[in-house]
């Protein structure tokens, strides 16, 4: 070869080598999208997901590009949002029960995109579900409530009568009854996950009916502020709500979705993602607890701590017989524990809860 040709060939090969290296080193980052039912500022349910997403970004770093869409209503509009996200993302997490059917529909139309639906039960080849065993946390909260209540009336602010909420009510009630056989549970339904005004009204109504410990299955910190104002107790829901209830908050369930999100996004990066149904509880670190209130007496605190350890080791299951259904029919025999299917489809109160079951 002539000198000139050789030098151009050399330059070209150097260029190729450089390009090959830079092209190969940066793999395509995973594009992950999250659909939220409320604002991240709710300091409850959605805030917990947002915290987990921040954890995801910290751990996985540049290998993930995250999109978060807040306050998506659980109606046909959610299908539109999920579809537009499916066009541009590799994996989509929909974080509320009501997104189940829209997610399933979009998952069928976009078989190459992976979907993860929280708290639901429809799965597909590209649609996974994940659910946290909140009822384990509620059981512990119940033990605290049963020990701290003076009026023996607990109040529950319910959103929608889906199995998850019914399960949590039953679990908390059983936990309270195990330390205080005289306790009763009053339940009101406000048909929304997030409406601070209505949550406050519900809290006031329950207090007027005699409740001195409040549970909430809604997303804002309104009930905690009402509890604080009235000098009664409440539990933080999905996030630590101590700021709004320094005296009122006995403890709370803190949702910890971070590890799961990291695991799933990593699976997409590694190409090992398959459709799964994952259930995580206290043992897996998905359900954590807010620090206990200083005013809780030693014996009550002990009972709750022991319950946490027992659940973690598997020595206790919140739903262990003998338990009857609300109408008296036997459900669990002595020592028998509820199956996962029974829990996921629960649509009855346990014996001892006086409220009429919502239809």
């Amino acid at each position, binding site marked *: 070869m002539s000198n000139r040709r050789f030098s151009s060939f050399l330059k070209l090969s150097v260029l190729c080598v450089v390009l090959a290296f830079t092209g190969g080193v940066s793999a395509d980052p995973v594009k992950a999208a999250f659909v939220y039912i409320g604002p991240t*500022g*709710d300091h409850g349910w959605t805030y917990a997901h947002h915290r987990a997403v921040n954890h995801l970004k910290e751990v996985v770093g540049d290998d993930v590009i995250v999109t978060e869409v807040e306050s998506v209503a659980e109606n046909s509009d959610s299908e539109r949002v999920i579809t537009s996200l499916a066009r541009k993302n590799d994996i989509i997490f929909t974080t509320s029960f009501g997104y189940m059917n829209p997610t399933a529909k979009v998952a069928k139309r976009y078989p190459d995109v992976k979907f993860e639906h929280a708290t639901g039960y429809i799965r597909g080849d590209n649609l996974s579900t994940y659910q946290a065993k909140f009822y384990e946390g509620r059981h512990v909260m119940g033990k605290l409530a049963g020990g701290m209540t003076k009026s023996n009336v607990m109040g529950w602010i319910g959103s929608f009568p889906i199995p998850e909420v019914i399960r949590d009510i039953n679990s908390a009630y059983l936990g309270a009854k195990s330390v205080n056989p005289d306790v009763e549970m009053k339940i009101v339904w406000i048909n929304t996950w997030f409406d*601070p*005004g209505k949550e406050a009204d519900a809290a006031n109504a329950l207090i007027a009916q005699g409740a001195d410990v409040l549970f909430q299955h809604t997303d804002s910190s309104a009930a905690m502020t009402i509890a604080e104002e009235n000098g009664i107790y409440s539990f933080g829901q999905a996030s630590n709500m101590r700021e709004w209830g320094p005296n009122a908050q006995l403890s709370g369930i803190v949702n910890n979705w971070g590890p799961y999100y990291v695991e799933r996004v990593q699976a997409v990066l590694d190409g090992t993602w398959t459709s799964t149904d994952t259930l995580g509880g206290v043992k897996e670190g998905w359900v954590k607890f807010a620090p206990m209130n200083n005013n809780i007496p030693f014996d009550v605190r002990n009972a709750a701590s022991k319950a946490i350890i027992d659940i973690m080791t598997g020595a206790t299951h919140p739903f262990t017989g003998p338990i009857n259904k609300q109408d008296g029919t036997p459900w669990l025999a002595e020592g028998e524990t509820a199956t996962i299917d029974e829990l996921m489809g629960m649509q009855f109160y346990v014996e001892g809860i006086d409220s*009429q079951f919502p239809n």
Partner: protein
Amino acid sequence: MNEGLFINIIIGISVASAPLIFAAIGELLVERSGVLNLGVEGMMIVGALMGFVVQFHTESYFLAVLAGLFAGVVISSIFAFLTQFLLTNQVATGLALTLFGLGFSAFVGKGYTEESIQLIAAVDIPFLSDIPLIGPLLFSFNPLVYLAFFMVYVVWHFLFKTKQGLILRAIGDNHDAAHAIGHKVVLYRFMAILFGGAMAGLGGAFLTLVQVPIWGEGMTAGRGWIALGLVVFASWLPFRVILGAILFGGITILQLHAQGFNIRISAQYLSMLPYLATIVILVALRIRLKNKTNRTVPNCLGRIFHSTT
């Protein structure tokens, strides 16, 4: 049911209906002048945010209430400018105002979701609240609730007992004739819109200053729309606004207490009730149109006024 619970229910209803009274009485005046402002929800939520923010920073209830009022005025002035000077379609502009208010408040409020404030406490009027039975029932409300009732009286007095109120009503019924006589249609409407904004802002501030001491985006949750329906339900008569607000606001409270008593009323039916009642009233108004001319839709409601002279 004991007396304490009964009083608690009455107080609960007063807190639930006061924001509706404020927003509806303001919108009533606006609609009486012939302008249809659908932006009530947007004005309310901006008032809610500003009341919360100012209370958080200054811890002065007086300034917080003024801030809510002022926020409503500023937001509604955009609407007033667009519809009265640029002659835009009132329905479209009002809807745009709602969307703008919701988005703007969510954006500005991002930094305040972690905070909480002290609510305005109810007051016991000395002497009067000591009267047995009715004392604690009627004279222990929150000061802003009394203000709401007072504003209804003010609007009634203005509309039906003053000359300016008469002119405003005339403008609402026939703006061309009013203009021909020499009244300043645009000025009256502009002032009415600002008043409506002030009241809506006050209604919104009531939420964060009296009902629940936190800020959450979208927390008015449709109360603005209920207020709009309330104006129709009240047949554009001020004192009927109170009746309607107690009905609409009270439904939620009663439903919650009914659940506590194990009386099962489907929540969906109760949520429908305000809107169904409004439709029924509208139909009844058309039927009675030929009898009472005072209790009907202001003739020029929603029509653009374009003076050619």
